[in-house]
């Protein structure tokens, strides 16, 4: 089963999304901030990372940049999630190395489609 690392600081969002993904058959590991996200990307070796962009301590863009800078974690696809529906957030996410991008609130079928696409690619 594909393993997804969900980096999300909001407990409720984390709980909902991880449970919904688990019901779809994914193994979900979680991290609550950017730093933990980078560490778990290395230790858990997930098949895909769902990265919230607005995180405490280290934000999602920085965490993504670090993940992409490490040869070991570089191949893991990162899908950015943000509450801001701003055009330049998309550009920033892609510039930081994210493979794709989705906006919150989560539209599960749309997100699953994007996850599937990225998993097939890698």
């Amino acid at each position, binding site marked *: 089963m594909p393993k997804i690392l969900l980096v999300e600081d909001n407990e409720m969002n984390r709980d909902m999304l991880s449970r*919904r993904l688990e019901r779809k058959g994914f193994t979900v590991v979680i991290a609550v901030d950017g730093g933990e996200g980078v560490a778990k990307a290395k230790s858990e070796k997930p098949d895909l990372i769902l990265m919230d962009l607005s995180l405490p301590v280290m934000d999602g863009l920085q965490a993504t940049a670090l993940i992409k800078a490490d040869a070991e974690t570089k191949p893991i696809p990162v899908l950015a999630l943000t509450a801001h529906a701003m*055009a330049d957030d998309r550009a920033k996410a892609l510039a930081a190395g994210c493979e794709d991008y989705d906006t919150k609130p989560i539209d599960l079928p749309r997100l699953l489609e994007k996850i599937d696409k990225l998993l097939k690619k890698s």
Partner: protein
Amino acid sequence: MLRLTIKNEEGTREFEHESGPLEIGRGPERNGAMRCVVLDLFVSKDHVRLEEFNDGVVNIENLSGKARVNVEGKEPVAPGETKLFVLPAAFRIGNTRVSIVNPSSVSGNDELVAVDPTFAFSPVGDRERPGLLSLEAPPSAEKLTTYFESVIALQQIPPGTKDYYDHITRMLVSLIGLDRGLVLLREDHQWNVVSRAYKDDGGGGRDFSQTILESLLRDKKTFFQPCPLKSGTESLLNVHALVASPILDDKQEVVGALYGSRGFSLRSRNLGSLEAKMVQVIASTVSIQLINKRQVESAFEMRLARDAAAGADRAKSQFLASMSHELRTPLNAIIGYSEMLSEQAEEDGLNDIAPDLKKILAAGKHLLALINDVLDLSKIEAGKLTLVRETFDLKELISDVVGTVAPLIEKNGNVLDLKMAAEVPAVVGDSLRLRQCMFNLLSNASKFTSKGTITLDVDPIVDNDKGWVRVRVSDTGIGMSPEQLARLFQSFSQADATIARQYGGTGLGLAITRKLCRLMGGDVTVESEHGRGSTFTMILPQQSEVTA
């Protein structure tokens, strides 16, 4: 120089005459001549002209055509006749006796006062009712200096204070030499005395007369009575002399008055016109200072109000921003968990609770849309919504919007007919807001149409040498009546209250769309026929103006 004493039943007056001819009597004022009016001469219509020559020789000219002038110990001067006399001489005109003294022949302590013809002889009485000979010593240079200093000092005192008004009444009494000085302000159609000063006992009589004050209100200029009138109005009978000058506001309305008078007594002096002018100057100074004060105050109040409004505006923006966050966080949990549960209920075949969960989800989504719309609208209305100016591909944006709206269109069994011009230029503007407007129009069309066609027409047009993009959304839905159309673009006014229950929606979509379109430099209009469908036409500049 002639020194004259004029005496009759009314009293005695003394004065000096420096040079030139002097007329005593009634008649038109003549250039270059001084004129004195002696009350009882009016009856006899006698009119005498005096002129001094060298060595104390006085020429007496009887200008009257009726009566003789009796010169003491000498022969009378017949009407129209002129005679030379050597001083001292005295003569009578009716009951008035005029003594002429050559001051060079007078020794001792007699004080001589210089007489300036411009103010020494105030116009007294009038043609029909001549007054007593008016004689006033002009203020000395020293007195004038003190006066000017006092007016300057007045300008250093905060206007409108008790100190300010007290300074004025002190000036009226000790500088102008009035027995009573008052400052009155008019408030709520009432005259209120705000300061008063008296010399000694104030000379008796009333402080002020309502009649005089009412005349100030009407005439808006200084009222001046230099000496007692023989048959004055009741209000003037108990004063010897009076001056009242209005305080005017910036609209030339009377807001107050300076009021000074001399009580009626034999010792009372008449009031000179220069003294009246001095009072008038104080009144003008007060008017100007009070106007300035009010202007400064109103500017200050306006600034306070503006600051308060700006503060309230900031508070409102802050409130909206935090409300946005505070409302959305729990709402996201409601939407998220009900969505999750309804997915699970469907997957697990829990058909008894799945529809209820879907209702919670729908209500949550509706509430979220409402919050978003209200926030958008308040941002637009507060002028807080700033548009982005970026170049984007219109075709790409349209296919994006069509992709988003497709599930809504299909939901009611509608089909979308997309007609796009082959050549669509790149657009410079706010793609996010354009997307929002198009989404609003397309989702409305699909909401109010079932098993019909929704047409999206996009073409570039040129008008007034300017490139525009025209987006038309037509449907074959329920349409609207003219009454419904009239209220269409207003906030919270869906065409009909029942519409909200039947079709959903916040009632803000079209209000926001119109406001956004206008903000972007364009507009949105509608044509509709009840039962036939509606066409919304959005026209936006191909290149938006630079927004500040």
